[in-house]
């Protein structure tokens, strides 16, 4: 008995000492935006992620957490590939066997929150003194729940959208490169000038899928794309939505944009590959494409913020942030919350920032700069993606309407040539039953 109490004392002292000696991430001399804290008691956790690269980065940060903040903790980190991640998560939820900590997407959050499968992290944010408004609203609002808007997740990263353009084609056409203050009309004019049917070259492809596609253009008109916040109603038939879709359809009808079948698929990856193959002058692409583009695109290119809506003057990017969540049934809720705090802290996010590719959610300017620097020597305007986080729109689409919104409406308008009004009405028919009336 005495022996256990003795060793417990030693442990507490060691913890206290390591807490005092903790290597706070403050090389710039400033306070960390989110400070990690030592755990109360080590234990065992399981954690799921869907990406190998992430697993590597998160694995490193977990090691740092165990070394500096929670000696003796054990974390079993597993990669469940994206293709089966959500099916597995659901089946494990059915068996009452969710991992303690796992990655969540804004599109899937509603289901798990509604079914009370997630641990409310708000008490921990309060306890740790984290002001949850430091994250951009697009990053965290989709992860709030309940009357008080409790935050159930810590954002891991952000993705924003910008226009990738082929500089060689601009040079050949004698056009100036676009700048962040361009608007839809500039975009349409440039795309028309860059189109060359003889050479099988199109001006732009910017409609594909929810995140990189038409919803960005709807958002610029000031309308929340697809569904009002809180699932309050379908917005696709609102004037702004129709205006955006008709603008894009007009470019298709003029032969400036290729249809889905020409591109070879309705995903932005298909459009991006089409761009990389030199058949497209401009493409809408996510920040997640930067590494690949730097490695693989064989011509001179750059990125520029999405063009502004001529009247609202806004350029708005859809932003998706993956979240860390914990299971409501975890045996170690305090430990899970402590790990999540660390992963979201300046120290934990540094691993993402340095890893490149994934843009860290932590808003510390130092961390954002680390991310930009991680791409090495390049004159690509990477900052444009960070700028796009400011006036950004969180994800409003979800599983049950995913196909209708993500691809069906795209294929109907941009491949089968359906009228925008008809396609929007058809899509709203799918969306409405899931709205909270």
């Amino acid at each position, binding site marked *: 008995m005495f022996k256990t109490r003795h060793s417990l004392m030693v442990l507490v002292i060691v913890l206290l000492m390591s807490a005092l000696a903790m290597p706070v991430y403050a090389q710039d001399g400033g306070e960390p935006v989110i400070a990690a804290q030592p755990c109360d008691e080590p234990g065992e956790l399981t954690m799921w992620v869907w990406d190998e690269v992430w697993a590597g980065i998160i694995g490193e940060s977990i090691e740092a957490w165990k070394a500096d903040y929670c000696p003796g903790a054990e974390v079993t980190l597993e990669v469940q590939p994206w293709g089966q991640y959500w099916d597995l998560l659901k089946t494990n939820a059915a068996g009452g066997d969710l991992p303690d900590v796992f990655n969540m997407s804004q599109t899937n959050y509603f289901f798990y929150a509604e079914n009370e499968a997630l641990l409310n992290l708000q008490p921990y944010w309060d306890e740790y003194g984290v002001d949850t408004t430091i994250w951009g609203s697009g990053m965290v609002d989709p992860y709030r729940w309940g009357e008080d808007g409790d935050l159930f997740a810590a954002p891991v990263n952000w993705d924003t959208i910008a226009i990738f353009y082929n500089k060689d084609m601009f040079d050949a056409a004698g056009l100036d490169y676009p700048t962040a203050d361009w608007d839809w009309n500039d975009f349409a004019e440039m795309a028309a000038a860059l189109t060359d049917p003889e050479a099988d070259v199109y001006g732009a492809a910017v409609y594909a899928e929810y995140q990189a596609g038409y919803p960005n253009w709807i958002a610029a008109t000031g309308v929340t794309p697809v569904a009002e916040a809180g699932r309050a109603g379908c917005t696709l038939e609102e004037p702004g939505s129709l205006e955006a879709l008709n603008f894009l359809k007009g470019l298709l009808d003029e032969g400036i944009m290729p249809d889905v079948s020409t591109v*070879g698929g309705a*995903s932005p990856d298909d459009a991006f590959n089409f761009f990389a193959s030199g058949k497209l002058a401009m493409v809408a692409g996510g920040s997640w494409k930067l590494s690949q583009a730097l490695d693989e695109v064989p011509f001179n290119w750059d990125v520029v913020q999405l063009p502004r809506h001529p009247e609202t003057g806004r350029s708005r990017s859809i932003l998706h942030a993956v979240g860390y969540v914990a299971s409501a049934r975890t045996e170690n809720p305090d430990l899970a919350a402590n790990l999540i705090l660390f992963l979201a802290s300046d120290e934990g996010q540094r691993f993402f920032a340095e890893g490149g590719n994934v843009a860290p959610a932590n808003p510390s300017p130092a961390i954002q700069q680390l991310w930009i620097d991680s791409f090495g020597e390049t004159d690509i305007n990477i900052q444009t993606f960070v700028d796009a986080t400011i006036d950004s729109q969180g994800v409003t689409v979800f599983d049950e309407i995913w196909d209708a919104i993500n691809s069906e409406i795209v294929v109907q308008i941009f491949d089968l040539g359906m009228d925008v009004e008809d396609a929007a009405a058809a899509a709203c028919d799918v969306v409405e039953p899931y709205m909270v009336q």
Partner: protein
Amino acid sequence: MTTAILNWLGPTPLSRRKALWGMALVAPNVLGLMFFFGLPVLMAFGTSFNEWNAIKPPRFVGLDNFERLLYEDSFEQALTNTFKLIALVVPAEILLALGVALLLNLPLRGRGVLRALYFLPVVTSTVAASVVWTGIFQPRYGILSQVLEPFGLGETKWLVEPGLVLIPVAVVAVWQRVGFDMVIFLAGLQTIPGVLYEAALIDGAGRWQRFRHVTLPMLSPTTFLVVVLAVINSFQIFDQVYVMTLRTVPGGVGGSATTLTYYLYRRAFTNSEFGYASAVALVLFAIILLVTVFQLRIQRRWVYYESEEG
């Protein structure tokens, strides 16, 4: 009680011991089947009477899920698509397999290699094959569109047009099954005694008559087996739909490529309606059972067994 069990096992101690051995030897297989097949089937049966989203405890709803089936247009569409697909796949598959089997039953050079080639799609991963076929059916740069160009069918949007999308799905399904059916047909052809052909030849039967009156009847038990298997298989087409529509609209524009298996998968794993999806699975099971029983019933009208008197 004990005597009843003993009698059930066998009349003599030796036969009882043999019976016990037999049971012990099949036990691993039977137990495995019960746990990994029987039990899930029973659970699906139970689930179908519940509303269950996999997270909250199931709620008993009686026959509600089955009632919903009757009214959901999407179910009716999936059912129609499934039958359309069967109509496209089964006849094409069987005619092609029979044709190939007849040709490869001839004493050709390199027959073994050809047989292996035709069998190759069967052992190819459906997912991989479907990815390649998706490329072939690509309207702009796919091989097919270039082949069909002279016929005015270039740039046909096979995988997008709601009225066409089942055709590429059927083509891949047929392509993957022909080899399998061919092997069964080949085995069937080998069992036809040569004397029958000789006798027919002596009676002056021509090539077509020998095929019509010797090969076809003698092959009918094999044909029956192939038809039953082909129908069951076509009811369960899933991978082709999943992969080939993944890059455009999953399940086809407006659900035009959604088969019953794909439908129940989406209902379970996209909409979290596990009870409803289980009901769909049970109905699918019942349909397959009915169709198979029907086939067994009508087989005596056209299947010729050697032992029977003609």
